[in-house]
């Protein structure tokens, strides 16, 4: 199959991919760019393990062609924090035991990141609804919800003191 060029920004870096038109974004990220934080859990838009941030929206990258991301600004879990300066959400997931096997975690945190941009002070119900597109088989969500609410509070504190 003939390949095509796709240009996008991934975690702040400009990339130019040469890939088949049918390549899914998740595979472009994982296999061509070596960004293996987002995972595949279903390939059918149900589990959210593949969630990345695209142009300020959460998308399930198993249901987006790489070609559709032409010119897009993409953030994955790898772009949210650095080992020395973790994102508050990453800290809170650790602190509140919001993960077990870790397979859903990158998608879950990336989704939570966008959720808190959209709604910086969500209620528990809003958090639960806001992450309903991301499945976790291990935690029962209780600690994930706690971690996100706690992160929201911390981020708001930081904003106020800034």
């Amino acid at each position, binding site marked *: *199959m003939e390949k095509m060029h796709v240009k996008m920004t991934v975690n702040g870096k400009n990339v130019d991919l040469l890939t*088949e038109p*049918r*390549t899914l974004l998740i*595979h472009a990220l*994982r*296999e061509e760019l*070596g*960004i*293996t*934080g*987002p*995972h*595949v*859990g*279903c*390939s*059918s838009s*149900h*589990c959210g*393990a593949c969630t990345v941030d695209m142009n300020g929206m959460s998308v399930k990258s198993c249901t987006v062609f790489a070609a559709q991301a032409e010119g897009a600004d993409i953030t*994955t*879990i*790898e772009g949210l*924090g650095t*080992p020395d300066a*973790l994102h508050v959400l*990453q800290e809170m*997931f*650790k*602190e509140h*035991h919001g*993960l*077990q*096997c*870790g*397979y*859903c*975690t*990158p998608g879950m*945190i990336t989704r939570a990141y966008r959720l808190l941009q959209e709604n910086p002070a969500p209620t528990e119900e809003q*958090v*639960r*609804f806001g*992450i*309903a*597109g*991301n*499945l*976790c*088989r*291990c*935690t*029962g*969500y*209780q*600690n*994930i*919800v706690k971690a996100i609410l706690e992160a929201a509070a911390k981020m708001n504190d930081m904003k106020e003191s800034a």
Partner: protein
Amino acid sequence: MNESTPPKEERSAALSGLGTSRKRVEDARFTQGKGNYVDDIKLPGMLFGDFVRSPYAHARVKSINTEKAMAVPGVHAVLTAADLAPLSLHWMPTLAGDKQMVLADGKVLFQAQEVAFVVADDRYAAADGVAAVEVEYEELPVIVDPFKAEADDAPVLREDIADQKEGAHGPRRHPNHIFTWESGDLEATEAVLAEADVVAEEMIYYHRTHPCPLETCGSVASMDKVNGKLTVWGTFQAPHAVRTVASLISGIAEHNIRIISPDIGGGFGNKVGVYPGYICSIVASIVTGVPVKWVEDRSDNLMATAFARDYWMKGRISATKDGKITGLHCHTTADHGAFDACADPTKFPAGFMNICTGSYDIPTAYLAVDGIYTNKAPGGVAYRCSFRVTEAAYFIERMIEVLAIKLGMDAAELRVKNFIKKEQFPYQSALGWEYDSGDYHTGWEKALKAVGYEDLRTEQAERVEAFKRGDTRKLLGIGLSHFTEIVGAGPVKNCDILGLGMFDSCEIRIHPTGSAIARLGTISQGQGHATTFAQILATEIGSPAEDITLEEGDTDTAPYGLGTYGSRSTPVAGAATAMAGRKIRAKAQMIAAYLLEVHDNDIEWDVDRFVVKGAPERFKTMKEIAFASYNQAIPGVEPGLEAVSYYDPPNMTYPFGSYICVMEIDVDTGTTEIRQVFALDDCGTRINPMIIEGQVHGGLTEALAIAMGQEIAYDEQGNVTTGTLMDFFIPTAVETPNYQTDYTVTPSPHHPIGAKGVGESPNVGGVPAFSNAVHDAFRAFGLTQSHMPHDHWRIWKTAESLGLHD
């Protein structure tokens, strides 16, 4: 005390040892997207393999034409049974003493069965290749109902063993019959039932479901032809057993095989078995000379690998008029699918189903299980369960409710009346187990109190009245469950898988500066072993947990062990860890005594050091001892500080718990709302309360899914009707409630640190709690039994059949 020595409590706290809610060391990499799961592995020149799968549940394979597929750009090879036959790899042994086709050999026996393996440049080219393989089938009659499988005119499914009258577990009475397994005293049980005041009888069905971890199964095989070494990365819950099995069936010497389980994205039993994909990736790597990856997709996973449950349990339970249980009879029809690939210890073809007397002192009991072949996927794995304990617990907890209805008694009171009493432990059950320890009454009373049981019953009675008056369309259900698990398989004398004793192991190496590395025969799939096993060790050897690295999953470096499933890691490998730690301490004592110039017996252990008895200012810390072990010539003591322990547990452990669910049910829509879930667990000594709580939340959510909607269903033709996440229910954060947890501590008397294991308890106890809540809501209207999963449609139908919509 020496002024420079901090107080005991302070030093103890600095270890983050046993009993602390230590934060997980695994989380740093997982939260940053730096986990290393099998699909993250990318090797130079690596190809990708994918299966052609059968669209039919039962058909003869007339021909397979691979010509067009071979012409597809990027396709390198297409393997069929004919290619594997010369290597004798077209069939493989199962964990249950049966054999299974790796690739269809003349016929297919379930939908989505593996027919051919296409190896291509990447997963896209492989999919193109799969689509181009031409297979001609001739459809055969299908059996999906195990009760029809033994009819005289039933089609013979397994033609390969049609004439074998003797199977791996005794006589077979029909070509579609696998085994009959019995436990207990049939005659005595029949006699008790015949004379009883009251006998309740019911068919309890625990439907077929699937562990469905978020990561599917996969492997990367790399055959290095230069040095003759095969390396396989894969989603293996038991890497050492995989190596041995791989060696036995491939003929490659065991030392030339290296099995690595990288990070695993959840297992729940799905990753215990050996699957055709693993074998095909290995063969394909041998054939092509380059690494080959296989990763199943979600539908492959749900349809072909590792179903769970599917037990039809016919029960009879007898009691005196005032509710003292006298006997229990259970006959189970077990639908095993097309191949008997259950993951059970060899001598237990129905797992530990004979724990079905549960938490109750039932003097006489009998159990028989018949394994049956049908045109469904093989598996029968322990989905967050210790070998059919979930089935057993569901059975007895339903039968108790059924008996309570028959007796007109409160189901909580009936339980209290029949619980095994604290002073009866160790308790010999009628079906042959020795329960190690328990205190059921204490936890049960605590749980009833926590939910306000009496008030709930009053509210429920008022609700029934209001419903009858037409003031409400909602009913209230109170789901009770008291489970006893049997975990930690197991004693080598009666537990093995394919002849491999079910011990486990730990090897510890203390470095000169006092930090350490420990390696185990198990493998974490999210349980946080690297965190908790370091805690056990920290307490045993007095080194901070953060100074202890923990490694598992690489057969070249880890000691042999049987892996992680059946809640066996803590009871078995946890014990091995403690014992290895004690060996380290014993040697450290000799070194410390030498350094302090006293006799071995004149010093004693004090948190992180040995002190001279009566002279606490004279001591040697573990750190000092470690250094000395590497730089001093101590007479009669070898240099270094290392230990290995292989632990063969003397008995199983028996965790237990009291779970209660309060549920609102809308009679008109069949929808449910969970108002409260209270879970009190007793898993003996608690290693890390934070992780225990997390395990309970997760297990309860899986139980909620199973009880309320999750199912692998087949139509009459053997088509899977729940093969995607669209149809296969996994609760989201919206359907999942908040849970209240509590605990009691009754240590296991035979485990070195008294721990029993907890990971599976919430699934075992949770399913009956949720299911009983549904049943309980309709008790006042005459419902005795309705089958799971209790999805909205089924609940609506129940209400309809009880005339509640009139």
